[in-house]
């Protein structure tokens, strides 16, 4: 498991899409001691601005990226973090959690600002549209009791992945008439 963080809280921003009416510079500063105690060696923390750290990082060759939790608050931070979705070593379908796309009235989240706008712009990329690769809400809770977090789960489908069409089921589906 790998975590990315500035280590110093939210960076300065002047981008109105970053919901600056909610977030102030330096918010969510890391408690390094408490975090290291919590993760207890189970994970790696990469400190710095994601605009630089994500671009230069790659997963272990034998461990493709399969799931990402996005909790960057800003539009301007989420866009470079989507560089993870463009890495070569990922699963054909990548599960994503977005913490900042649904909130309370004071958040006033909409599709034109914040992380929702970042998702929209990611999907509008011409190269990605030509490949039909896309990031979309996961419709995966058919048999579950509805819960608020279900609307925060997305899937990145890389249709251009060489294993995208590999059938995950080892048995043939069959419904028998009684």
């Amino acid at each position: 498991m790998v975590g990315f963080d500035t280590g110093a809280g939210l960076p300065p921003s002047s981008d109105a899409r970053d919901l600056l009416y909610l977030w102030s510079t330096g918010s969510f500063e890391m408690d390094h001691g408490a975090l290291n105690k919590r993760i207890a060696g189970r994970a790696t923390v990469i400190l710095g601005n994601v605009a630089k750290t994500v671009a230069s990082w790659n997963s272990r060759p034998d461990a493709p990226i399969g799931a990402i939790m996005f909790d960057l608050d800003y539009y301007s931070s989420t866009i470079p973090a989507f560089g993870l979705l463009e890495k070569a070593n990922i699963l054909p379908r990548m599960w994503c959690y977005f913490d900042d796309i649904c909130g309370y009235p004071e958040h006033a989240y909409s599709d034109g600002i914040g992380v929702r706008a970042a998702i929209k712009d990611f999907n509008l990329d011409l190269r990605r549209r030509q490949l039909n690769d896309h990031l979309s809400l996961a419709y995966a809770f058919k048999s579950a009791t509805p819960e608020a977090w279900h609307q925060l789960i997305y899937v990145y489908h890389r249709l251009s992945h060489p294993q995208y069409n590999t059938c995950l089921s080892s048995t043939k589906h069959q419904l028998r008439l009684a």
Partner: protein
Amino acid sequence: MLNAALEAKALGHKAMTVVAETGSFASAATVMKFRKS
């Protein structure tokens, strides 16, 4: 994460990377501990 792990296994991988960006990191690490146990 469980769905992703199952897919990774089905595609023949023995390991998978999970990434957390900032605030959800400690929570995700805790979930990993729970899943492993």
